[in-house]
């Protein structure tokens, strides 16, 4: 036998063997987006599910958008993912405009069940939304806790926001100052990654940030409560395909174990470990579960 044929047939054989060994049915696939907290939650549930069951879990991170994740769930490429209640306003199905937390959640739970055959679990406990933040020392000195506490000072304050929010008509800057009846001295638009440093270095007094970004801790910034409810709620929940829950009913209980257990402070701290302390999501997830005593031997 000439060498060429030998190599070719060996390659063919290896291919067939490998392909036949690859299709395992009992693998749960958890999707995650490009930002850290979705990857941390995916890693946490991977550890948790593999700890409680014989199922194998694959994490599929860095997916481009929530729409892409939800579409992949529709074609069974992803079984479980982290979602935020406010995504319902991205044209998935007809919705009622509101900023009421309960109502948005309820619409998400009913809508995704009906239109996408997905189970939207009860919230994990934190919200990742736009948040007005000020330096901690300023907040302490002036007694700022709520956004409306800025009322007496805002006309002398400078406001740093990310450029896309500045342009948005319905829920952007113009609507915001109208809602709170504010009139900032000046509003600067910049890349969202720059606002944290801008506030810390006293270039601006107030910035619009993402509420669970660890740089809020890094730069000692305080989040003010959106007391007049301008921003749509973004309650984080796990979402799973109804079919996978029917096939493995024990997943219901496992996913629910963390319901209501992770507040904003906790997730920000976990984000901090990954983003600022440069640890892997897997390490951070394991440590979190061990601290909570959730990993059974």
């Amino acid at each position, binding site marked *: 036998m000439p060498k060429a044929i030998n190599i070719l047939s060996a390659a063919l054989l290896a291919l067939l063997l490998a392909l036949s060994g690859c299709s395992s049915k009992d693998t749960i696939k958890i999707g995650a987006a490009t930002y850290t907290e979705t990857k941390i939650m995916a890693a946490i549930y991977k550890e948790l599910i593999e700890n409680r069951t014989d199922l194998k879990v694959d994490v599929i991170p860095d997916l*481009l*958008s929530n*729409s*892409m994740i939800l*579409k992949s769930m529709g074609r069974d490429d992803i079984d479980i993912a982290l979602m935020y209640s406010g995504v319902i306003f991205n044209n998935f199905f007809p919705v009622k405009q509101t900023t009421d937390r309960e109502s948005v959640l309820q619409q998400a739970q009913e809508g995704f069940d009906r239109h996408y055959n997905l189970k939207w679990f009860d919230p994990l406990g934190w919200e990742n939304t736009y948040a007005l933040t000020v330096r901690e020392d300023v907040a302490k000195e002036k007694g700022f806790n709520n956004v409306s506490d800025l009322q007496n000072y805002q006309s002398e304050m400078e406001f740093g926001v990310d450029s896309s929010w500045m342009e948005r008509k319905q829920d952007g800057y113009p609507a915001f100052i109208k809602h709170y009846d504010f009139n900032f001295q000046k509003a600067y638009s910049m890349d969202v990654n720059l606002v944290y440093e801008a506030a810390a270095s006293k270039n601006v007094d107030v910035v619009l940030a993402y509420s669970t970004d660890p740089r809020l801790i890094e730069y000692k910034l305080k989040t003010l409560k959106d007391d007049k409810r301008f921003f749509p709620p973004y309650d984080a929940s796990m979402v799973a395909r109804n079919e996978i829950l029917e096939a493995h009913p024990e997943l219901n209980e496992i996913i629910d174990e963390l319901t209501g257990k992770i507040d904003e402070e906790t997730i920000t701290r976990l984000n901090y470990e990954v983003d600022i302390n440069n640890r892997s999501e897997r390490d951070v997830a394991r440590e979190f579960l061990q601290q909570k005593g959730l990993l059974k031997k």
Partner: protein
Amino acid sequence: MKILQDYFEFLQLRLPDIAARSGEHLMIVGLAVFLGCLVAITTGIILTRMKEGPISGLVFGIVNIFQTIPTIALLAMLLPLLGIGLKPAVFALFLYSLLPLLRNTYSGIKEVDQGVIESARGIGYSSMQRLWKIEMPLALPFILSGIRLTTVYIISWTTLAALIGAGGLGDLIIAGMANNDNFLIFTGTISAIILALVVDFILGFITRKNSEQSQQAN
């Protein structure tokens, strides 16, 4: 038929966007290839002026390693050094353009008949004159085909620049993926292929014209 009609409407709506992305795309490619020509052709000439030895081996070895490194790995590794956006994209693609350009310049000049060079020396041409009047014109078809080859591939690779925020047609593909918009993915793809084919055709045409001229001159 409905889908064609939809697509046509989509094209009309997004045409400015597509044109802008194509423009960015061409600019990145143009800058990278231009810088590549500048550096590779000069280096190629210098290498032919030296004795074959460790230095040319080293230069080719390094340039070959650039060629081997996965595109996204190279783009990513340049991020911490050059920041996000156009700079790392142009620089990475410039590194990729070096090997074909350098190889073709080098072998193009080396291929020139020694007899021709000797007779040029005989009639008193200086080294510079030999280079500009004899060697470069004779090596030009090689260099042009190197430019053609590298440009076509760089047009294809430039789509990856969108992953590090440099824009270009890759933006359309990524936006299409993110928003489940198949028209966008399709448009980004077709635009990049058409761009590559058109540039290939134009550069091929120039190469042919050039060789016809030099044949007439002979």
